[in-house]
């Protein structure tokens, strides 16, 4: 029974991937990609990776999907021109041949994998008690492979600097993205007023539970960042100026605390990022607490994009930058068909 479910999920996944790749319309392709991301989290559940499934649903499907949907809207005008540059039949035949060969070689490798498979699970299980956390994934992320996680946080900050550096000079220090001006009494604003406190409780729960159960700072940060984006899109608060001090402090606090703890380990435990005996759990909690604001800010600001307007000239309230949303006069009268 479960084998049939797995097979159906795998076939659906392949079909969606193919559909996404060959669809003519970019919007359709991105919509397909979002559904693909959700289906992919089902795959992770079947592959016994609940933590990975949560990350995939939140970041792989959710955030990436939102990012791509935003881009599709702004790239609409360039689609037709690009379509005319479509590769010829010869290139396509070559592409099919190449893709099929790559997939076949990979599949042959899969079928000739060594037995028994190499694994680090016994070592992880043996040493997990020393870290004081109950979720082995968190143990790996913050104790056994803490250097990877530190570098990952640095990569996120560098990516954000990269995005910001694409701002035109005149907007440096300004605010990213359009200023959203949704109807202050509309349903989106209502959602942005009611949902964030609930999102905060659920997000912080995921953060707190990550030590012993599936969950953790990445999934939590995604939910909190999504709540912030909802408030921004409803026009209840504007995107921050990228030159504000508190923002920059919040962005670097995570990596800085991480490095500080690492140096402390080099001094006290004899290795960079080593934890002194009995101090692993509190150190891990300190790192996670410091990483949370960094992750929330960076994830949301990556979605916001490069600064696109100067900070000191906010448009009139209620003005919307989404040109498609023109207001219309309300026709009077009862039933219209």
């Amino acid at each position, binding site marked *: 029974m479960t084998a049939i479910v797995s097979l159906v999920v795998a076939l659906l996944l392949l079909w969606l991937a193919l559909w996404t790749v060959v669809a003519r319309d970019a919007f359709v392709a991105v919509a397909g990609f979002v559904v693909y991301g959700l289906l992919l989290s089902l795959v992770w559940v079947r592959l016994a990776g609940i933590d990975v499934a949560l990350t995939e649903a939140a970041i792989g499907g959710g955030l990436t999907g939102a990012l791509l949907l935003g881009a599709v809207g702004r790239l609409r005008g360039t689609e037709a021109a690009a379509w005319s540059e479509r590769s010829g039949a010869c290139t396509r035949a070559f592409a099919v041949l190449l893709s099929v060969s790559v997939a076949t070689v990979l599949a042959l490798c899969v079928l000739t994998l060594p037995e028994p498979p190499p694994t680090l699970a016994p070592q992880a299980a043996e040493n997990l008690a020393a870290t004081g956390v109950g979720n082995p994934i968190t143990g790996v992320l913050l104790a056994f492979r803490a250097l990877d996680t530190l570098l990952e946080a640095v990569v996120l900050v560098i990516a954000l600097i990269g995005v910001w550096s694409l701002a035109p000079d005149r907007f440096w220090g300004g605010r990213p993205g359009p200023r959203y001006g949704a109807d202050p009494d509309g*349903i989106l604003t209502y959602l942005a007023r009611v949902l964030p406190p*609930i999102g905060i409780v659920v997000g912080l729960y995921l953060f707190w539970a990550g030590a012993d159960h599936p969950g953790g700072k990445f999934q939590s940060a995604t939910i909190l960042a999504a709540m912030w984006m909802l408030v921004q899109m409803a026009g209840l608060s504007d995107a921050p100026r990228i030159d504000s001090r508190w923002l920059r402090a919040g962005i670097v606090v995570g990596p800085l605390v991480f490095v500080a703890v690492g140096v402390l380990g080099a001094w006290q435990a004899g290795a960079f990022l080593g934890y002194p005996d009995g101090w692993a759990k509190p150190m891990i909690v300190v790192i996670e607490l410091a990483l949370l604001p960094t992750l929330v800010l960076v994830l949301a600001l990556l979605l916001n994009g490069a600064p696109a307007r100067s900070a000191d000239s906010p448009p009139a309230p209620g003005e919307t930058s989404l040109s498609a*949303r*023109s207001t219309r006069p309300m026709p009077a009268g009862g039933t219209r068909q």
Partner: protein
Amino acid sequence: MSVVLDVFSIVAIVAGLVFFLAGTVGLLRFPDAYTRLHALTKADNLGVALVVTGLLPQMDGVLAALKLVLVWLLVMLSSGAVSQLIARSVRRRECSE
């Protein structure tokens, strides 16, 4: 007693699945964006409600059951809000054309 509860769960969940099917059929058969929204929100809400009801007796503890109800409430909040947002955006696009 547990047999009765199991039968109740199965019946409720199957009924919920029927409504999910109805929502999907409606999505495919109904003529325009608005009517499809009706199909999705109403039939799927009832589907979720029935699946949640069916699962309630299977949960161990009142808190776990409340968590399921919470999921149902959040699904309703989002589907109610999103259906309005889609309806409004389609309406405005139609009127500006």
